[in-house]
């Protein structure tokens, strides 16, 4: 299994009610499957997940990206800084 850390920001943190969580996921899981897993765990995120950006270790990633071991994954809406 792969021990990862997941961070939630902005809308996603407010909705899930959690800032960060440590999870065990299968090795070689891709981001699309990870999103499915997350929605099972946090059904309240289901309406947001298609509008969510995902980063791994501070780089943007996409559905087909394989999650490396001990990754720091972050989930957040399109950015609105400035």
């Amino acid at each position, binding site marked *: 299994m792969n021990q990862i850390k997941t961070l939630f*920001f*902005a*809308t996603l943190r407010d909705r899930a009610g959690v800032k960060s969580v440590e999870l065990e996921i299968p090795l070689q899981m891709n981001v699309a499957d990870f999103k499915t897993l997350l929605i099972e765990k946090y059904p309240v995120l289901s309406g947001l997940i298609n509008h969510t950006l995902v*980063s791994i270790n501070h780089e*943007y990633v996409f559905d087909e990206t394989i999650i490396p071991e001990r990754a720091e994954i*972050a989930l957040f809406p*399109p950015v609105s*800084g*400035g």
Partner: protein
Amino acid sequence: MTTYPTIFSITEDELDLNHLLEQITLSSTGASAIFTGMVRGTTSRDNPHETVYLEYEAYKPMAEAKMKQVADEIRERWDTIEGIAIVQRIGKLYPRTPTILIACTAAHRDTGVFDAARYGIDRLKEIVPVWKKEVGPNGEEWVEGDYNPQLGE
């Protein structure tokens, strides 16, 4: 060989333009273009509304990495740029407060220093993970961006 200063940070402190500019001014520098964004109290365009304050949050280590990336992109496009400073202020910020700054310096004003600063602020607003919750007279809501980064961004 001169090394060119690149400053980037996420901070809760007031932006000090004088100090930031001083840090990116070399002996060969003759021009700077600086952009700042401020919290608007009154917005007229699109969806007119009043803002009491904005609450900014950042994913700090990734935000600083993306600021560095924007600085690198600027240097790839304009090899005339000497210093670059990028600062995003976070926390609870009231109207008229500067919240973001990008400053670029160069020897002369006609070698892209304005374009570089303009490019920089556009990119910062696309890829730097910072968000703001807007608090108005009738409640609060997260402001949503509309850019989806592509592979490699």
